[in-house]
């Protein structure tokens, strides 16, 4: 499904509340963006296919031309106009009525308590609760505006969450977004009273969620750590939303790639930050780029990327086959080593411990390998087509034999089993899992010959969509010491677990003279974005475990994790 085109339009840097958890507080200078500039942005967005306009701030209703902008956006053609607001201005019934008449479609109120003492204390304004509540009622009475609520969870209101939700459900609200505080601005200044013990939240959230859903409410979460949602994993935020976070911090991250320190990096803050896993992984890769020695790189001969070379990727340039631009499209004898004009990868990569090659056929892998200009310490290969000869043989001069060769395709796995060339790498798609079960006798005869790993990218999504939970899929093979790669040991307790450095797709490095943030974000989401259960704290293997892919947690629930508490 195509993503709806949205325009987030910040009208001002001014607010009439002073929320204890505001992460944007440092950006508030009281300024209002000129209406001319705002109209221009609206028009340009529409020309670019914009469908939803989101008016935000500061507090957008403080903008003197708020109503005019709603009217303008509707007149120009925006189909849906939303505002994210504390809603106090809507306490004036005429203001609410005029906003509805102008074409406001949706108002998302920030409400953080179910009574004045709690809410007013959190937003720093006496009387704010009564005004916002009046605003909700006024907008609901128009019958034209969808009203929903954002609740920023914090130490002061987390225990009251069930009451907060039930209070507003009684007021006629049936959609809530539960937000985790962002450790910046005032949220960080007040960290002692804002951030809460996860175990405490985990006790309250199930009750709040079940009660609200039982009343017909729809819930969303935003930046909430997955471990808080055990039992309600469907509410874990879509991992792909991480792209929005990266977009929001792009300037800082780009400067980090240029060598400037990331100003917010401090362990205590990162502990509470939704993107800390991303930053940790990026830092790890940045360190590898400094030496040019990479622990693991992934090369997919089928990958297409927007552009290559020394210029930054352009959204308008036509797709090119990256491999063909980096290595010779023809035979190795005619190929000339890449220059800095054609690619920057050779300048970045001096060595690699493990190279993962994903190729359509063995011939394709053999055509690509010599041009890489690298001799990996070890390499593994996955194929889409069955090999007719030994695929473990060195792909180029000086290369060692393959460590393992595999596929997610049963026909290829069959060929590898028949050929008996070496360890078989099973990329655990639904068909591959079925193949493992059908070949149970052969697997059981030599279980140490099988290395099981979840597939990459779309393969992982397909695995989740088709309900193939690795532990369950391989349960008939229970008791066999298979090799399990980058999956928690508790999914298959008899297996030998290996945590290998996830292979960084080479296109992440090849786009420019440095790491491509968007491609790295995709790599992170698909491979490195993982989570644990709160119960995992008690596991003897916790320090050795890399966690469960978030997609898998969403699909199968965190309950599949069974901590080893002894032995």
């Amino acid at each position, binding site marked *: 499904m195509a993503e709806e085109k949205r325009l987030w339009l910040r009208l001002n840097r001014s607010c009439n509340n*002073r929320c204890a958890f505001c992460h944007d507080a440092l950006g508030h200078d009281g300024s209002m963006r000129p209406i001319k500039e705002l109209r221009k942005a609206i028009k340009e967005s529409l020309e670019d296919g914009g469908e939803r306009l989101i008016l935000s701030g500061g507090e957008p209703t403080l903008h003197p031309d708020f109503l005019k902008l709603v009217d303008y956006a509707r007149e120009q053609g925006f189909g849906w106009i939303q505002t994210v607001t504390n809603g106090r201005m809507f306490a004036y019934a005429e203001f609410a009525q005029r906003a509805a008449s102008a074409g406001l479609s949706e108002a998302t109120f920030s409400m953080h308590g179910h009574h*004045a*003492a709690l809410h007013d204390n959190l937003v720093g304004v006496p009387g704010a609760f009564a005004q916002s509540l009046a605003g909700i009622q006024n907008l609901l009475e128009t019958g034209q505006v969808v009203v929903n609520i954002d609740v920023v969870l914090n130490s*002061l209101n987390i225990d009251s969450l069930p009451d907060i939700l039930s*209070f507003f459900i009684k007021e006629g609200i049936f959609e809530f977004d539960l937000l985790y505080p962002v450790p910046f601005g005032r949220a960080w200044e007040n960290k002692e009273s804002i951030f809460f013990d996860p175990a405490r939240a985990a006790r309250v959230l199930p009750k709040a969620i079940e009660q609200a859903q039982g009343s017909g409410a729809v819930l969303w979460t935003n930046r909430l750590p997955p471990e808080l949602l055990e039992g309600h994993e469907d509410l874990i935020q879509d991992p792909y939303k991480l792209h929005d976070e990266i977009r929001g911090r792009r300037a800082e991250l780009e400067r980090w790639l240029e060598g400037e320190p990331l100003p917010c990096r401090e362990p205590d803050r990162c502990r509470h930050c939704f993107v800390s896993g991303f930053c940790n992984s990026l830092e790890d890769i940045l360190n590898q780029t400094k030496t040019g020695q990479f622990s693991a790189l992934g090369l997919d001969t089928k990958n297409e990327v927007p552009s290559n070379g020394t210029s930054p990727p352009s959204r308008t340039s036509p797709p090119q086959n990256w491999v063909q631009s980096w290595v010779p499209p023809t035979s190795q004898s005619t190929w000339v080593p890449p220059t800095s004009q054609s690619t920057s990868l050779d300048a970045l990569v001096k060595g690699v411990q493990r190279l993962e090659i994903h190729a359509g056929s063995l011939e394709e892998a053999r055509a690509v390998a010599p041009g890489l200009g690298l001799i990996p310490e070890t390499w593994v290969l996955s194929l889409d087509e069955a090999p007719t000869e030994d695929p473990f043989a060195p792909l180029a001069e000086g290369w060692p034999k393959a460590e393992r060769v595999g596929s997610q395709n049963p026909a290829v796995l069959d060929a590898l089993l028949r050929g008996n060339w070496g360890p078989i790498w099973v990329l655990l798609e639904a068909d591959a899992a079925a193949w493992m079960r059908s070949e149970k006798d052969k697997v059981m005869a030599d279980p140490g010959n099988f290395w099981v790993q979840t597939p990459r990218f779309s393969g992982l999504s397909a695995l989740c969509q088709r309900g193939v939970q690795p532990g369950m899929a391989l349960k008939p093979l229970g008791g066999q010491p298979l090799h399990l790669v980058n999956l928690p040991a508790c999914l298959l307790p008899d297996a030998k677990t290996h945590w290998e450095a996830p292979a960084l797709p080479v296109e992440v490095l090849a786009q420019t003279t440095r790491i491509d943030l968007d491609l790295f974000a995709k790599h992170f989401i698909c491979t490195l974005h993982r989570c644990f259960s709160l119960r995992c704290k008690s596991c003897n293997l916790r320090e050795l475990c890399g966690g469960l892919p978030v997609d898998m947690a969403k699909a199968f629930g965190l309950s599949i994790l069974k901590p080893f508490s002894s032995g």
Partner: protein
Amino acid sequence: MENVEIDSRGNRIGLLLDEKIYPREVSLAAAYRFIDRCYVRLERAGRGQLLIWLKGKRKLSAKALEALAGDYDNELLQQLMRQQVAARTTGIREAIVGRALMSAEPWTEETEPNKTNEIAELDYTEDPLGIAVPWEEKYGGQEED
């Protein structure tokens, strides 16, 4: 100790305290700490002066009576300090207790705010409630820092 009278025969000491130095609540709080071992009597000794008698519940030697006077002086200082610290930290203590109570406060019908119909009738262009005024403008002057 010029302000101390040691009455060995009466098994007691008398302490004359200047209320400008030791506010009455400080003297009382200090005296209260001695009621387990002494009988306490308070007398007004003149303008701005308080005379405190501490009489031993059991027989005290002259040395013990002198030590009792010293203990009382030390207790006076402690109570004075406590009072000063309490005055300085009133705000934060109230905030902590307030927050603790708030997070525990159950919602009841009584705590539901008034449906503010009267607000609804007001003219938003005039903003009589000052809703559209940025926080800094409205309350910023009240910030401590």
